[in-house]
């Protein structure tokens, strides 16, 4: 599940209260269904319990008093670890991929984001080669071929998105560094 990491990513960017987190999530992942407040607070509770976030203080800017949370150094370290780990190339990992790229661009630098995407592309390609070998093996039954096709085509969609993302990110990198 990537939701806790996404919230942790928002907190690593800057301290926020629960409402702010929900708003950031909903606007960042507009395709996902809006996050329930219950889930925001339950997730914050777990992050706090695990020492990844802490209640930094409260904020009462023109409304009710709200607790402001921030990421702990351990939380940041955990986030970096997550960002550096490629997702298992299975069909429908795409939402996890999007979560990682989004968070990487938010809290890490462009190189970190590019490295992650590059590693993920390599993992996807390796899996596609395995699936293609299954598909072309004379021992494979029709059902194996059809299942392999399903996975290959979904991975292909991920790959095209990853590569486009990498192009966008490296264009940006060139602009920033020249």
């Amino acid at each position, binding site marked *: 599940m990537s939701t806790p990491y996404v919230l942790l990513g928002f907190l690593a960017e800057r301290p926020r209260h629960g409402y702010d987190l929900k708003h950031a999530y909903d606007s960042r992942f507009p395709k996902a269904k809006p996050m329930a407040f219950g889930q925001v607070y339950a997730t914050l509770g777990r992050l706090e319990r695990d020492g990844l976030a802490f209640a930094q203080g409260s904020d009462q800017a023109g409304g009710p008093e709200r607790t402001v949370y921030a990421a702990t150094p351990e939380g940041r370290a955990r986030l970096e670890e997550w960002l550096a780990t490629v997702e298992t190339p299975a069909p429908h990992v795409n939402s996890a991929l999007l979560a990682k*790229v*989004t968070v990487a*661009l*938010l809290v890490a*630098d*462009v190189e970190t*984001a590019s490295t992650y*995407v*590059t590693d993920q*592309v*390599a993992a*996807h*390609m390796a899996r*596609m*080669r395995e*699936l*293609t070998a299954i598909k*072309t093996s004379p021992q494979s039954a029709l059902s194996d071929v059809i299942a392999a096709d399903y996975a*290959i*085509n979904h*991975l*292909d969609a991920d*790959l*095209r998105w*990853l*590569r*486009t993302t*990498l*192009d*966008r*990110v490296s*264009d*940006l990198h060139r*602009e*920033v560094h020249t």
Partner: protein
Amino acid sequence: MTAEPLLTGRGVVKSYGQIPALRGVSVDVAEGEIVAVTGPSGCGKSTLLHCLAGILTPDAGEVSYRGERIERRSEAERSLLRRSEFGVLFQFGQLVPELTIAENVALPLMLGGTGRRQAHTAALTWLDRLGVAHLADDLPGAVSGGEQQRTALARALVTEPRVLFADEPTGALDTLAGEQVLDHLLRVTQDQGTAVIIVTHDARVAAYAAREFALRDGEHDPSGVGIGSVRRGRRARGEVATEARAR
């Protein structure tokens, strides 16, 4: 790689007028190996393939086949090499429309001096291997795109080359027809121990190869992420991009 590579490019440079297409590309291909050359449109894939196949002469750098330089040989010598050791397969439009399927396949052998009857027999054997023997007497215009590609593959392989150069060989076909061409290509080249250099921008095609050689802007991209979008002109900058920039 322990054995000496079959085909090597060293620092291959090629420009078209002012346009640099290859900026010093080095690549090794081993005997029987399948390599996918990938990268965004215009990155130099076809140019590299043509330089390695001796169709184009590089401006600088070396191309060697079995340890011998070939890039400065005369056109006659290179053409002999292409006829005997190399086979080429392009996206489409390679068959002679006035000749039957079998005559098209027999053609390279006859150009090499093989007698008509013997060439025809060999052509039929290859058409059979590629599952299109029943079309032997048809004209190319009367058969499907996939069948034309399988015929072109038979023609590329009839001389039993050691290297097959394929430039987007399935680019004009639908998924299943393309897959059949690839399956045949893979099977017969593996049987014969023929090395294959296949240019593609499709990851699903690249996944047939054991190794990917990615190009980017005329240079080897060792990260292997070559297959990508065409990105010419202005990029639309999204919200995410703006944030990363702010850092």
